[in-house]
């Protein structure tokens, strides 16, 4: 059976579980032929899914719920990532110590293309406008790298615990010179890297059966990756076509990722879901979603996949 998975970003240890499952033959054991499509900076997985270019996508829940409200009926079928890896990383010299008081008037780097929702929700809870000015923050569409921080074009930039943060460190800035604010710690963490399909897919029994096998094999891959970060990193490296990744960086990323996947067996935790929804709904005048979504997740797949 053929199945296509669209990733959210370029080939890296963030998606280690899937690459391990493919490389170790876990998918094959289930009788699946899985194609993994790498993503990229301006590729919206939701659009790929809607267009029929993939059967399953890896997406962050805010983007998925926003798309759902736009009329694209996405359903979360599994949630391998338990916690969020998002944070804002600031230069100590910018003088920021407390988000509640110090962000005003500062320039912050943010990822867009569907990744801006958690940030916007956070700023809303802080009561900060994102339109600039002295009592708001100036937002930069952050490009592909951490240069804005290094060039001091922004006081803080978005980073992931497992990736960009380490690039800042690698660039020669000592951890002591940095201040970080994890979304988890700020109480604005939203679910990342879940598996989503279209509602219609779940009505097709054959597809559902395939998805069960897929989720089962993927989780096996994730757990294997958690335990063998070095091997997983090597597998990722082999699958990277650009040849730009380094084993050190990927191994470290795998180790960090393992911390985020640790608490999940693959099934979506309803409480996490509700927390994400609440944060997103709290958006005030321009909320990410305007009403409580319905049917945005299903345990149908994980219940069967993780049964034994």
């Amino acid at each position, binding site marked *: 059976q053929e199945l296509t998975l669209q*990733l959210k*970003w*370029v*080939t890296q240890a963030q998606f280690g579980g899937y690459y391990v499952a493919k490389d170790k033959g876990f998918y094959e054991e289930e009788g699946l032929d899985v194609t993994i*499509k*790498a*993503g*990229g*900076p*301006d*590729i*919206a997985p939701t*659009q*790929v899914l*809607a*267009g*029929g*270019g*993939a059967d399953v996508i890896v997406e962050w829940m805010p983007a998925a719920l926003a798309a759902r409200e736009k009329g694209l009926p996405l359903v979360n079928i599994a949630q391998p990532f338990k916690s969020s890896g998002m944070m804002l990383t600031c230069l100590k010299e910018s003088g920021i110590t407390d988000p509640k008081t110090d962000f005003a008037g500062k320039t912050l780097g943010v990822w867009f293309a569907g990744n801006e929702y958690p940030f916007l929700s956070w700023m809303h809870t802080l009561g900060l406008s994102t339109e600039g000015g002295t009592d708001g923050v100036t937002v930069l569409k952050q*490009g*592909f*790298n*951490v*240069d804005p921080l*290094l*060039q001091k074009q922004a006081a803080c930039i978005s980073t992931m615990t497992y990736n960009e943060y380490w*690039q800042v460190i690698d*660039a*020669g*800035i*000592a951890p002591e*010179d940095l201040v970080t604010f994890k979304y988890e710690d700020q109480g604005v963490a939203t679910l990342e890297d879940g598996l989503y399909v279209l509602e219609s897919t779940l009505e097709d029994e054959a597809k559902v059966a395939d998805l069960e096998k897929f989720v089962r094999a993927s989780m096996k891959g994730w757990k294997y990756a958690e335990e063998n970060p070095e091997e997983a990193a090597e597998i990722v490296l082999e699958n*990277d*076509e*650009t*040849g*730009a*990744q380094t084993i050190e*960086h990927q191994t470290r990323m795998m180790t960090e990722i393992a911390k985020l996947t640790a608490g999940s067996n693959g099934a979506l935790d309803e409480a996490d879901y509700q927390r994400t929804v609440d944060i997103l709904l709290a958006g005030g005048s321009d909320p990410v979603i305007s009403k409580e979504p319905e049917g945005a997740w299903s345990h149908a797949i994980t219940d069967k996949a993780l049964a034994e």
Partner: protein
Amino acid sequence: MRNLLPILTVLLAIVAIWYVAAIGMNSTWARDQAARAETRLSAGDLVIQTLTLERPVLPAPHQVAAGLWEGIAGQKITSKRSLVWHGWITLSATLTGFAIGSLAGILLAVGIVHDRAMDQSVMPWAVASQTVPILAIAPMVIVVFASAGITGLLPKAVIAAWLSFFPVLVGMVKGLRTPDRMQLDLMRSWSASRPQMFWRLRLPSSLPYLFASLKVGIAAALVGTIVGELPAGASAGLGARLLSGSYYGQTVQIWAALFAAAALAAGLVIAVGRIEAVTLRRMGLAR
């Protein structure tokens, strides 16, 4: 040959300016690092540091040269770290796109010079078509193709084709219209048919124009391919190389990919030039 000395002089000047700029642009970073480490830098140390940074704002020429050498000769050409391999991926998409684009341009041009309705309808919109920021919607093009199950080379090639068809169209229309009234009248006085006029007069007279625009078109196709490779960050090709270099802050890698792309562009233009020279000489058009 007599251009060699001036070119070398200018190149030398550029390299010199480049070194000075590299020192200037990288010095802030070097000083900051020193300040963080609470050391002071002597002028000599500063120069050495600025020219050997891991992540320079502007890499020094020798760093780029080393990066290029490493990418070209330091790897097996089948390696994913080899610029030759990435260059090949880009080249194949460029050539495919160029073939599609120039064919489309030529066919449209033929239609336009032979059919008035087509001339009046298509030409104004052909100009407008080039103002569509295809480069900004390249990601969507990739996605739309993916939704039709087409991935890999073709979507990039389509973007390349979009950019290269226009110069070819314009050049070819101009070329097919170069025969002057006298030449057309001669044909008419022999009661030549339309196809005869096309094959024996319009087509041969258009060739010099065609080649001139093919040179522009192939450079445009390369730009299109590279841009098509940017959003699909994980795929291969020089554009992906540029992007991943940017993503990981590896300026040397960006510059190496850029120079590889430049060399590719020059190579392609020169190749078209060679074909032009041979063809025109065969036809007796080159003197």
